[in-house]
């Protein structure tokens, strides 16, 4: 069953086109990775899917318009810049967001993403990895069907990033959660994603990474000779 479908989606800022004729479909329960160089329109694509930017073309979530299905989307932004001296606890940040879960279920989600011991900690004192898990928890409290993660592993060390991708895999399997993730790590995409969307303002490729991400495509995308080394 299709959960997300885009047809000929383009986004322009004045004269400048930042996303051109992007079309793809994601099935429920899949993990789709969005890759591309800086400025290729990855975050713009997410903002269009969320309805934060005007676009031409069509975006359907569960076959309906964005406004009707916004409650089914969980989102973890790329930047979460705030005054770190403000005393806001993890529990309070989670209480600021809309919940569709009962108290017991919320506790279970916090345990699953391993932030159950952080409830009284101030968000300004969290490490990058801890803050990222808190942001995932806030998205999951909505009980979304589609989770959008904008470069979630940026700024996290290798071990932290590995644990993070394992957590996403677990959530995908256990909750049948469809995940779209912006990533720069091609090796991780190979191991982890069911579909890959290659963007460089227009769509360079779309399909399963093992058949889609060949040296030629990567060169077209990044303009250099690169290969993926599977671990």
């Amino acid at each position: 069953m299709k959960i997300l479908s885009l047809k000929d989606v383009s986004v322009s800022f004045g004269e400048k086109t930042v996303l051109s004729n992007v079309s793809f479909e994601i099935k429920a329960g899949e993990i789709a990775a969005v890759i591309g160089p800086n400025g290729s329109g990855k975050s713009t694509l997410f903002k269009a899917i969320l309805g934060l930017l005007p676009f031409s073309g069509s975006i359907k979530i569960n076959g309906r318009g964005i406004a009707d299905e916004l409650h089914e989307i969980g989102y973890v932004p790329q930047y979460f810049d705030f005054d770190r001296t403000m005393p806001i606890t993890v529990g309070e940040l989670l209480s600021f967001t809309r919940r569709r879960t009962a108290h017991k279920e919320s506790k279970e989600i916090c345990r699953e993403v391993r932030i159950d011991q952080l409830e009284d900690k101030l968000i300004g004192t969290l490490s990058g990895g801890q803050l990222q898990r808190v942001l995932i928890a806030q998205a999951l409290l909505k009980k979304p069907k589609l989770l959008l993660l904008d470069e979630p592993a940026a700024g996290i060390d290798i071990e932290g990033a590995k644990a993070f991708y394992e957590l996403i895999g677990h959530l995908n399997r256990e909750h049948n959660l469809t995940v779209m993730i912006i990533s720069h790590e091609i090796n991780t995409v190979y191991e982890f994603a069911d579909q890959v969307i290659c963007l460089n303002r227009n769509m360079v490729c779309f399909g399963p990474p093992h058949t889609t991400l060949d040296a030629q495509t990567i060169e077209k995308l990044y303009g250099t000779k690169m290969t993926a080394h599977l671990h």
Partner: protein
Amino acid sequence: MLEMLAYPFMQKALITGLFLGVVLSLIGVFVILRRMAFFSDGIAHASLSGAALGYLLNTNPLAVSILFSAIFAVVIAQLEKRAKLSSDAIIGLIFTSGMAIGILLLSLGGGYRPELTTFLFGDILAIKWSEVGLMVGLGIMNIIFILLNYKRLALMILNEDLAYVNGIKIDLLRNLLYVSIAVTVVMGMKVLGIILVSALLIIPIISAKLISRSFRSLMVTSVAIGVLSVLCGIFVSVRFDLPTGATIVLTGMGIFAILVVYSKSKQRLIAARRHA
């Protein structure tokens, strides 16, 4: 000291001071969280145009100032969204234009206007019952707005995209917050004046940050410090015949200094216990 309470000017000052202490401190939490202290300064100066028009038309200058400040707030919010200018530049534009209009209108009125010094430096002891009514009414509306929306406001300030995905109507809430801040600033001008009004939006909150361990405790502690600063400032200024606005600000600074010393001593004590 209790006999002071028998005077009507003192009763009016204390009622107004109590409400202003609560409202300015509550709103101040969001002003500091959003890092928009310059906005409150800009609105305070721009609203001089409203006061000047009020005097020129022989109507209530406070009411006209409040109306003007609300309009300026919405204009700033819309320009921030639509114009390709930084927030500081937009506020600077409104700040100076509003003041320029105010100066122009005052020159049309001619003659010396002693009431205007109230707007520049504040005078809570000269407040009228009609103004007390207006401030208490607007104060209650602002308190209800903040208490009903503080979670949405905090999330919007932390990350607008996240707030939008959580079903918050960002444009509406941003406009309401800006209007709420603007109205509160003009109310505060009656006590502290254009020049000092920002102090009560900032000092109670930065003081409360030193001892608060959650957002909720920050809100409660800020209000407590704000109210304490205003009420102590009023009593001290009357007792020693000092300018009220300046005394309130310096009382707040005194509380801040005490809390800095307390917080540093506590940190040293904790560090010493760890090493022991």
